């Protein structure tokens, strides 16, 4: 199959490319960027005039809810949602039921994802068996099965000796450990500590629950030499600690969710349970620091933190509602909004580059060698590399109406009725290995 994407604005943050031209794809690989050979005879030609052609998005955090929570989401629906959002590679978390602590489970997931061929799937294995924080999993076996790192998802390890040994063991093989910094006891509340939680009478999660955990992890990284990815930083102080750890040269990377990047606790309004997410939404100065941290590279990646939650678990009083929000289909538009690339119909080059870097190059750098043969071409437009490509219309404005989402999870803080957000950038075409995973081209 040969595809020619004609006359699009080709943008690749990795190479600095930003020019109007053609993209030629042959047998799943990019064969020409800019001008296709005169003798290139495509089976299909796509007119991308006025559209942006960029590397497919790489999302470092999505829950696909399989196995165990199929009533909230399934591989089929959630990988289709990824494709609809222009996401071509997704890292999924191990907090399924059972947890991803057995190679067989991981192989099954990988196999099923491959059959659906909507999006590449990179599972995180459980760091401890059943995510219980007690016994280590067979990391090398899980690696063989396809895990790209190890994580505790939302279950922090309480026993620091276990965490220390897990990091030592992972460091033996050079595996990355993905940890969401949250103290298990201080982190028990349902909203960020502050004026809003005080007023609403909601139990608070203090900033110290994040900073104490980061301090602990940084100390263990110093002593074990393990590589750690800090997931979902939520506070200004957290950003500062990551900055210091990086300045020290420690092997630490970090990400932020679209929720924490764009919203604050004030958005909870009158107990809107769509705003119930983990980590909890914090204050304006935290959001500002997260936005600045993503801009200056302290935070490496923007993630959707996609978590489909079914109606029964959301239509509850705020504190009882299940945390989480759907996000795969919003990642691109929110990246554009964060960088200011949504301000004009044809985004300024620098704003566009920054938005795309946060969801392509940044995450790929976090994944590094764990991507294997893809590490040199995923998240990039490279001649000879895999054709994971998104084509989107930057001028198309839209608002989030939950029922129109592809994901089985319909709850999002960004629903127009909650936040009144106007989005920019609609995905027209998603290619994974040169195959159409999603198509909504203008007629």
């Amino acid at each position, binding site marked *: 199959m040969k595809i020619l994407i004609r006359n699009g604005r080709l943008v690749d943050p990795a190479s600095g490319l930003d020019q109007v031209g053609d993209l030629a794809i042959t047998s799943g690989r990019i064969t020409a960027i800019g001008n296709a050979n005169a003798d290139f005879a495509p089976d299909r030609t796509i007119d991308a005039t*006025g559209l942006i052609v960029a590397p497919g998005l790489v999302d470092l955090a999505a829950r696909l809810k399989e196995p165990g929570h199929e009533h909230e989401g399934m591989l089929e629906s959630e990988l289709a949602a990824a494709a609809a959002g222009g996401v071509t590679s997704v890292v999924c978390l191990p907090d399924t039921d059972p947890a991803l602590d057995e190679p067989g489970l991981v192989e099954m997931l990988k196999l099923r994802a491959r059959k659906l061929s909507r999006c590449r799937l990179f599972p995180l294995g459980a760091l401890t068996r059943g995510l219980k924080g007690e016994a280590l999993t067979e990391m090398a076996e899980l690696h063989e099965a396809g895990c790209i790192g190890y994580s505790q998802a939302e279950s922090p390890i309480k026993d620091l000796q276990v965490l220390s040994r897990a990091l030592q063991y992972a460091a033996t093989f050079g595996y990355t450990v993905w940890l969401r910094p949250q103290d298990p006891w201080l982190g028990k509340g349902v909203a960020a*500590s*502050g*004026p809003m939680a*005080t*007023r*609403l*009478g*909601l*139990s608070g999660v203090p900033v110290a629950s994040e900073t104490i955990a980061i301090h602990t992890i940084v100390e263990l990284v110093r002593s074990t030499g393990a590589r750690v990815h800090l997931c979902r930083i939520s506070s200004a102080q957290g950003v500062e600690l990551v900055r210091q750890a990086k300045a020290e040269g420690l092997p630490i990377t970090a990400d932020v969710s679209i929720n924490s990047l764009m919203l604050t606790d004030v958005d909870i*309004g*009158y*107990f809107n*349970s769509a705003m119930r997410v983990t980590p909890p939404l914090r204050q304006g100065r935290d959001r500002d620091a997260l936005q600045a941290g993503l801009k200056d590279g302290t935070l490496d990646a923007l993630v959707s933190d996609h978590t489909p939650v079914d109606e*029964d678990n959301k*239509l*509850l*009083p*705020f*504190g*009882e509602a299940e945390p989480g929000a759907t996000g795969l289909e919003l990642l691109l538009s929110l990246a554009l*909004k964060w960088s200011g690339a*949504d*301000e*004009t*119909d044809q985004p300024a080059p620098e704003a566009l580059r920054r938005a795309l870097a946060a969801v392509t190059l940044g995450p790929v750098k976090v994944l590094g060698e764990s991507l294997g043969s893809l590490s040199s071409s995923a998240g990039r437009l490279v001649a000879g590399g895999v054709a994971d490509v998104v084509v989107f*219309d930057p*001028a*198309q*404005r839209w608002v989030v109406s939950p029922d129109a989402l592809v994901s089985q999870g319909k709850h999002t803080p960004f629903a*127009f*009725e909650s*936040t*009144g*957000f*106007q989005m920019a950038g609609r995905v027209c075409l998603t290619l994974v290995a040169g195959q159409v995973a999603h198509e909504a081209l*203008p007629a």
Partner: protein
Amino acid sequence: MANIAPAPAILRKPQRNPQLNAHGELIHLLSTEGLPKANLLQILDTAEQFLSVNDREVKKVPLLRGKSVFNLFFENSTRTRTTFEIAAKRLSADVINLDIARSSASKGESLLDTIANLSAMQADMFIVRHSESGAPYLIAQHVAPHVHVVNAGDGRHAHPTQALLDMYTIRHYKKDFTNLTVAIVGDIVHSRVARSNIHALTTLGVPEVRVVGPRTLVPGDLRHLGVRVCHSMEEGIKDADVVIMLRLQNERMNGGMLPSAGEFFKEFGLTEAKLALAKPDAIVMHPGPINRGVEIDSAVADGKQSVILPQVTFGIAVRMAVMGIIAGNEA
């Protein structure tokens, strides 16, 4: 291709206070926060008229005749439920008491399913108590337009009728709010009564509201509510016109927030000696039920400055006023 002119990045839909209709009239009572002074005063003035009903031989007015009021208590409280029941009956409503803590919720029925079922039984008003902050908001958002919701206490968030009866009591004894110092003592952080009182007092123009207690129960960030945070009784009570004591829950000791009830009483319990620091004509209030010897000494609870029992009497008139007013307003 769509080429719509760039819209402003954020078009926030104004979020109307869910307890008021478009004319600013009260349709539900969910919180005293954001409740305009005029609405608060309307309730107090109406309660004043109802107080005389309570002294009549036939203690009934026909305001809610034919209406069904459902007492929905997801959390046990005999006292509050009873005062709502009496208030509704004096307005001639049919009252149905549902002790959900022991029925459907324990069988796994969801909150909104319970509400939908009861709505199908032609309920006109729900009086709701729930252990989760915000639960009455969820209910108010999902009932039919003619159905009214009264918050009878949600989690740590609000207990507006208690606050209104407290305001009624203060006005009864002190006449004017604008020259008062009011001290609220005890477990403020977990108290819906404290929150609702703070909002009502500041709205009615009380210049100084103090919250008093140890830092575990009165953290510094309570100042965001517009109050003065005090960690000693001497500072908190001095020259106060009104002292509101809160009930101390036993859970606070088990949760590591206090070492013992005895130590709390020694430091923050209201005794005659401590009350002497307040103004000579200060009144002592308590939402009940009181823990004698934990937050308040018997000599004070039964003393001449105590208005704890009049509070209960006023509570019925205030709840009649709230139900009467919201039942008359359309969404």
